[in-house]
Structure formats: structure tokens, C-alpha cells
């Protein structure tokens, strides 16, 4: 960008600068470049701050922080595994529920429903996506938790209780409840973005499929959905990002227990939840920096998952490129 200016001889520099201003193109380039660079800057500052402030904890525990399972502020022993486990488990379960629901709803709204249903539903979906998470937390506490404790969890124990996944007392709070509320929170995102990308599929694609004798459903499922899959996958990863970092609603219903349990009915913890819970009252370098290191771990976890998302998208695009 600015290299031409620097290389030019000094006497013409002023004129060049004036020309630069007049053209506008270069200025716009520079300004928007700075805006874009700020994204990079924020990321760097974020990692730097997390890294610096987690120093005492990294020095004390090293990499064992990642697989230690004790969290004891009295004895100053800290390990991240129960929180990593809780975060990944609840997010994964949430997507397991919300992806089929969300993509299914998006297909209906984009392809099958009449314009009136579609528009009013879409309006509600966008409304749901904008509801603050603490409201979802309240919804969970007042409806989801009692329902699960009285009906949902006893039912799961009766029918699937032979699996270690559904054993132990039915508290109503725990991994399962957190996953359910996360699925409710993430599925408006999936619907909204998936619907947009389905609508963006060119009309010719559908018409060609129909002309070849495909039914409405065949054209939707075999032509339109594969064409829009990049957008759909994107929506899933946006949902995953929200699920990983969700704090308030999860804290309210996960039970906040620092042990690792196999049973989905048992109470657990997530990284975001413990930071929110313990940060204000944490005193002492090791304790505080361990909480900050948890933030670093969450950042790393998000990076790893995003990178694998990119790889997945790359892989599927190449395989399916014949169609486009």
C-alpha cells in the first residue's frame, strides 16, 4: 500500500500525497485496512493479556493444569479437566439436539412453508436469537429444572437407567439441563443463518432438479441443502461458539460441581461458569492466575474447534465441487 510513497524521491512526495488524498481510493484502502487490523490487534492483546496474567499458575502447574482434576482454592491446587470436560460435553450435547432441529426448521421455513408462516416464524426466530442469556437461565430454572426433576429424569432413569449415562439422583440441574438450555439458545442461530443460505440457492438449481423429475423433497434434500451446506455448517459453528462461551444460563442450571461425572444427570461445571463464579472473590496470585489460565484454555479450545471447522469445510467443498 504505502510503499510507493516511501520509495519516491523527496521532491515529489508532497504532490503524491495530495494526489493520494484526491484519489480517495488509497485512503479508503488504508482506513479500512486499519479497521481490519484492529481485529488482529484485539486478538493479539487478548492472548497476550491472558498469557501474562496466567503466569503464576503456568509456572506452578505447567501442562499438568490441563489434566489435573482438583480445584481446591484452600490448598491452592488447580486443574482444568472437569471444566474442559463440562464445556465440551454440554456444547456437544446441545448441538446434537439443536442442529437437526434448527436445520429441519430452516428447510421448512425456506422451502416448504407459505410466505406468511415463513415470515412470522422468522421474525420470532430473530427475536429469540436476541434474548439475553440470563432470561434463558430464568426460563430454565423455573420451567426446565422442575420438569426434568419430576418427569424427564425419572423417565430417563426408568427406560435408559441401565446405561451409566442416566444414573444417580434426579436433581433437575446438571449436564443434561445445561445442554438442553444451550440447545434452546443456539437453535435460533442455526435456523436464522441456515434459512438465509437456503434462500440464497439460485432458482435454476431447484428448477433443474424438478425438470429431471425429482419430487419437491428430493430437490430440497439432494440439491438445495447440499448447495447451501457452507452456510449451514457456518451456522453450526456459530452456534458452537455461543455454546462454548455461554456463561450465565449455564451457571444457573449446571449445578456447579467441580467433580467429573459420567452421568448426564449429575451436576458439573463449565470453564465460563467457574470464571464468572469465582473471579470476584479470588484472592492470591495462584488462584487468580489459575482462573485466567482457564480463560486461556477456553480461548485455545475455541481456536482448535474453529480450525477443525475450517478443515471440515475445506474437505467438504473439495469433495462436492463438481456440483457447483
Amino acid at each position, binding site marked *: 500500500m504505502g510503499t510507493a510513497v516511501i520509495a519516491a524521491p523527496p521532491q515529489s512526495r508532497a504532490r503524491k500525497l495530495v494526489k493520494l488524498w484526491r484519489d480517495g481510493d488509497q485512503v479508503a484502502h488504508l482506513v479500512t485496512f486499519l479497521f481490519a487490523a484492529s481485529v488482529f490487534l484485539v486478538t493479539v492483546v487478548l492472548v497476550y493479556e491472558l498469557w501474562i496474567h496466567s503466569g503464576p499458575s503456568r509456572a506452578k502447574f505447567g501442562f499438568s493444569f490441563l489434566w489435573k482434576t482438583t480445584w481446591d482454592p*484452600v490448598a491452592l491446587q488447580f486443574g482444568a479437566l472437569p471444566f474442559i470436560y463440562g464445556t465440551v460435553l454440554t456444547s456437544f450435547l446441545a448441538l446434537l439436539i439443536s442442529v437437526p432441529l434448527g436445520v429441519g426448521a430452516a428447510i421448512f421455513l425456506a422451502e416448504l412453508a407459505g410466505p406468511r408462516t415463513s415470515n412470522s416464524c422468522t421474525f420470532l426466530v430473530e427475536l429469540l436469537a436476541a434474548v439475553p442469556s440470563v432470561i434463558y437461565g430464568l426460563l430454565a430454572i423455573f420451567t426446565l429444572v422442575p420438569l426434568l*426433576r419430576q418427569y424427564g429424569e425419572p423417565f430417563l432413569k426408568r427406560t435408559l437407567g441401565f446405561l451409566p449415562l442416566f444414573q444417580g439422583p434426579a*436433581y433437575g440441574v446438571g449436564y443434561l439441563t445445561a445442554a438442553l438450555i444451550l440447545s434452546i439458545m443456539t437453535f435460533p442461530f442455526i435456523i436464522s443463518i441456515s434459512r438465509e443460505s437456503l434462500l440464497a440457492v439460485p432458482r435454476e438449481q431447484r428448477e433443474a432438479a424438478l425438470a429431471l423429475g425429482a419430487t419437491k423433497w428430493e430437490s430440497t434434500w439432494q440439491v438445495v441443502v447440499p448447495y447451501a451446506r457452507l452456510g449451514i455448517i457456518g451456522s453450526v459453528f456459530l452456534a458452537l461458539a455461543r455454546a462454548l462461551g455461554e456463561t450465565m444460563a449455564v451457571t*444457573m442450571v449446571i449445578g456447579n*460441581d467441580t467433580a467429573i461425572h459420567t452421568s448426564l444427570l449429575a*451436576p458439573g461445571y463449565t470453564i465460563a461458569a467457574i470464571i464468572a*463464579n*469465582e473471579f470476584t472473590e479470588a*484472592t492470591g496470585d495462584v488462584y487468580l492466575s489459575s482462573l485466567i489460565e482457564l480463560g486461556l484454555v477456553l480461548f485455545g479450545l475455541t481456536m482448535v474447534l474453529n480450525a477443525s471447522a475450517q478443515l471440515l469445510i475445506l474437505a467438504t467443498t473439495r469433495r462436492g465441487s463438481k456440483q457447483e
Partner: protein
Amino acid sequence: MKKLILWATMLAALATLTEAADTINGAGATFPAPIYQKWFQEFHKAHPDVQINYQSIGSGGGIRQLTEGTVDFGASDMPMTDDQIKAITKYHVLHFPTVMGGVVPTYNVPGVSGDLKFSGDTLGGIFLGKITKWNDAALKKDNPGVNLPNADITVVHRSDGSGTSFVWTDYLSKVSPDWKSKVGANTSVNWPVGLGGKGNEGVAGLVKQTPGSIGYVELIYAVQNKMGYGSVKNAAGSFVKADFNTVTEAAAGAAKEMPADFRVSITNAPGKNAYPISTFTWLLIPDKIDNAAKKMAIASFLKWMTTTGQTFAQEMSYAPLPKPVVAKEDKQVALVK
């Protein structure tokens, strides 16, 4: 026009200057925040030149900000440790007890409507996960004549770090050697069993919703929400129900052996009517304040707090300080230089 703007700017600058001289900033504990806000308002009415701002960001946050020098005073639900005090090299931190609070056991036992009694040992056993049934022999012994059901106990504790948890675990550490060696006392601990609820309301909500559960909340919270709660056996061997008098009694009982710097836990205090899970909450004041106006203001606030201030305590649901403690505190005000 230009002149007008100039004058306005100068006036504004002057206003910020004069304000800065008498604006005192503090931060810390959330538990006493309502009465602190009230106090600072009332004190401002009586002394219009002094403006005290308080941010309730948690005891840990208050201690951190005081250490970093970003506030003029801190506030905490637990006394600072020796290490924390040593970390501040510019001055020595003085602890001023302001009001008192209690922490009470609250429970939801199907079929039991009356108040239950708990001895320290039993509470320790329940929170360690050793006593798992409501009809356990230990609970039966504490509650003769109560028909306790054969139901599982679900323990509920605070998930957020809090002074309330500190008092509760500090008490358990004193009455249960097992608790002391396995868990210990802090704002957050490694809970052996149970569910975590966020804040008093989170714990109360879980207890209300979960049959067979037991948790703990601040006395104020229980009183304001008209919740039932149990009595706890004190050091003198009698079962005492928490209220403002029994909590104040605990401080009076502990006053005889109170160290000069007020850094004392008054859980399990002696005294026949002393409620054993009681605590002070403290203002953390530097003993050297360079700004003379600030120093005067803080000293006069402290004097006001132990006299007029205390009259606001009960109406705001806090237990007032007992007289012997007030007398000792007035002497400590002279140390602020």
C-alpha cells in the same frame, strides 16, 4: 461567545478539582453494600462536602483494588491475611468492623414443618457427605421427637466465591476436625458433595425446589424472604436460632479476647445466647492518608459510623455492633494518620 465558553470550561475544571478533593472511593464486599450505600448517603447529607462512592465488587476485588491503590478504602467479609497486609508496603491496613451478619442453615425436608436443630458435628458430617439420610442417628439425636423421613440428603452450597461461604466453612472447620483437614475455610472451597447455586437466591431456589435438600444463606436474606431456618448448637452447648440479638451476642462473647487489630473470626463464639455462625464485616482503611481533607473525612465518617450509623443497622436487617467493640474501634480511629 468565545469568552463564555472559556469561563464555562474554567468553572467546570474548578468544579472537578474541588470535587476530587473530597470524593472518597471505596470498593469491596457485597454483603454490607446496602447499608454502606445508606450510610454514605446519610453522611453526605450531614457533611455535604464529603462524597463517598462505594462499588460492591466482592471482598476479593476490594482487597485487590486496595492493594493496587486504585481506591481509598476497601471492604471485606473476611479479614485480610498477613501476606495480603504485607503486600501493601506504603501503609498498614486497619480493620474496622462495621456491622454483623449471620449465616443460617435452610432446608426442605418432606413432612417436617417445624424448625430443625443442628449440632456442628452433624452439619460437618452432612456437608462432608458422611451423613446421607435425614433419619441418620446424629440428626435424630439433635431433634428428639421430630419424625425425620428416610430420605436422601442433597447438599446445596454457594457456587460463587462469597463471604457467606467463608463464614460457613470457617465455622465447620472449627467444629469438625475432619472438615478442617479435608476441606478448610475460604470464599470458595473444594466441596466434597452437593450442588452449587449462584448467590443466596440461587441456593434458596435450589433448596426450595429440591426435596430433601439443605443449604445455607445469609440471615438477612432469610429474614427478608421470610424463609424458615434451623437452630445451631453453640459452644456453650445450647441450640440457638439466629436473630440480630444472638448475632450481636456472639461479638460480645468474642470481644473479651478480641485482638487489637480486630482481625478475628467470631464463629463458635462463647456465650450462652451467642449464635455460632456469625461474622463481622470490615472496612479496610489505610493508616496513612496523605490527603489531609480525605483523612479528616474518613476519620469523621468512622466516628459517625460507630454511633449514628449503628442506629440504621436493624432497620436494614443487619445486627449492630456490641458496645465493647464500638469502644475499642473509637480508639483505633486515632491510628489513621
